[in-house]
């Protein structure tokens, strides 16, 4: 029983991190039809800068941790907004080229991080409470899981409120639904493009800081490794669907954890099998529109 509870919390915690990456990817794809291969490097940059700030302000203090989250989010947002403005927007409506540009940026940025921070993982320390465990139904759950779940929950709430309650959120939702119509109504969707990239960057930057605590290290390849699972999550959840991304990230992460524990470490393969099953039965994903 305690094992199941531990796996549940670990799985949902990992799902929270997947969600932070996949939500941005899914929104960007939904609105712009761009598969953003540079999303992982937004995450890595957030993680690295968060790590630098935390180690300067004191890695074991809560101030340091809060500052690292803030800096991670800002770094992700800025990097993402610049990527959209300087690279992606120049290739307006040319989807394959847009993907290629993000691929190139991803390669170059990972290499640059290698050069700056080295290829070896940097080990992370957080506030002492984060390293301890809390007993839930007999299982000793590491506390960083709770933090990841809390932050991802807040991000989900914030995104939903933003999309439902604000004018720009409405434009983005309308753009995902039918971009031609939004443009025809005289609304400049390009601002919305920069905005979804920025939102995706914030989520990815937060995800980077949390992922570095979850895994205990940060390395230049951290983001690109998570990105592949985030891609799987977005396809399973249905491209462009925020709810789909939220559900699929938890499902994928739980499946991965349970398969790793009970099926001899086959978590990654189980996820790919799930992907194949979803594609065979529902090619547009769990929450995707258009059968």
């Amino acid at each position, binding site marked *: 029983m305690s094992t199941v509870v531990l796996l549940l919390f670990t799985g949902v915690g990992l799902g929270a991190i997947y969600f932070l990456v996949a939500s941005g990817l899914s929104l960007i794809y939904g609105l712009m039809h761009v598969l953003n291969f540079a999303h992982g490097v937004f995450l890595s940059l957030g993680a690295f800068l968060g790590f630098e700030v935390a180690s300067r302000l004191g890695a074991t203090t809560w101030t340091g941790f809060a500052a690292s989250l803030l800096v991670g989010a800002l770094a992700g947002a800025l990097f993402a907004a610049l990527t959209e403005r300087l690279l992606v927007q120049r290739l307006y409506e040319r989807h394959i080229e847009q993907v290629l540009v993000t691929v*190139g940026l991803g390669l170059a940025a990972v290499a640059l991080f290698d*050069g700056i921070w080295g290829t070896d993982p940097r080990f992370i320390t957080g506030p002492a409470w984060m390293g301890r465990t809390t007993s839930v139904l007999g299982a000793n759950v590491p506390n960083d899981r709770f933090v990841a779940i809390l932050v991802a929950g807040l991000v989900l709430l914030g995104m939903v409120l933003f999309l439902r309650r604000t004018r720009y959120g409405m434009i983005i939702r309308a753009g995902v639904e039918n971009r031609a119509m939004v443009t025809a109504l005289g609304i400049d969707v390009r601002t919305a493009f920069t905005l979804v990239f920025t939102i995706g960057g914030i989520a990815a930057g937060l995800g980077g800081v949390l992922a570095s605590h979850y895994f205990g290290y940060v390395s230049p390849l951290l983001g690109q490794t998570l990105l592949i699972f985030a891609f799987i999550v977005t396809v399973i959840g249905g491209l462009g669907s925020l709810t789909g991304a939220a559900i699929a990230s938890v499902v994928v992460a739980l499946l991965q954890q349970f398969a790793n524990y009970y099926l001899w*470490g086959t978590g990654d*393969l189980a996820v790919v099998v799930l992907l194949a099953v979803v594609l065979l039965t529902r090619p547009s994903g769990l929450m995707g529109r258009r059968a």
Partner: protein
Amino acid sequence: MSPSTPASGTAYRGGARAWVGRLVPPALVLLLACLPLLDLRLPGVLPGPTYTPGTLHLLALAMVMAALALSYHLLLGVAGLLSFGHALYFGLGAYLLGIVMSELELGLVPSVLVVLVAGVVISLLLGAVSLRVTGIPFAMVTLAFAQAGSVLVRRDPGRVTGGEEGLRLPTEQVPDALVGVADTRNLYWLALAALVLAFLLVSWVQGSRAGHVAAAVRENELRVRVLGMRPFLVKLAIFVAASVIAVGMGMVHLLLNSGAVPHIVSAELTISLLLMVVIGGVGSRWGAVAGAVLYVLLNQRLTVLAQAAWVHDLPAPLRIPLSEPMFVLGTLFVLVVLFLPGGLAGTVARVRRWRGRGGPPAGADRLEDVDDEQQAATTGGARR
């Protein structure tokens, strides 16, 4: 082969140029075949004289990658399928050949046949699943399958792939002529033969009915359906053909490097294929070859540059980017995508058009050029 133009001086000249054009590829192959016997030096491009094993190995690697890029061209350039999992088949060829030879103790030739059959079966299965979606979802699905393969190879559940260490070539099953540093020239000739074979195969597939229908599907799938053809089967055929060529190149790569490492199954390898094809020019066979050769040579030179003493003395903002080959290649790639649509092949075609402006069928000296140019124009146009 000159296009049928009214009888005039231009047409005659076009015919003569076409003859020269047709002689260039065999002559190039002949020259490449003679390289191990010659003492040519290209300082700054090649690490040493052409007869040395180091240079031959680098050239052979460039040719294997060129052949692999050609198979990727079938997917991206002909069928318009953006796959992020092509490395899976390359790695499959290399690893499976090694495993079949060491575990089943078969000789080289029967092992190659076994691996080719396995390649057909696996690519049929995975292709049939991935082609249920198109466009960007297809990219993600192929990426996921390749990732599963990469995880399998690294984790090594059956104790056969050697995990992170990689797989060693079981030399006892391989003829002596293909083993050892002194025999690099034989491996070089093998790689050259593989490249020529791949080029002929790719040209054949591209020119076949399936190739034409695949190109039509790339442009307008609905129209092909309306004409009563089945795009799925055609795309599957192209996918299997490209995958089997990749399997074959993986086997040559295993022999060439006397082993296989997990990197060759990774997404990074597929991404570097994408770089080669795009830098060379999507839709052009010569572009794919040129892009691959440029990529391999540049990667090697940049790695050497990264270790150069003068780079180490530079201040950090210059030293760090210069000592990371992938940073330079990635940036180059972004610049090509932004400013050189059509890559090397597209640029060459454009320069030719400028020079030939005024003459009736400008720039169209050979049918192949017409084909490539039209493709470059249409794919470019479709994306614009």
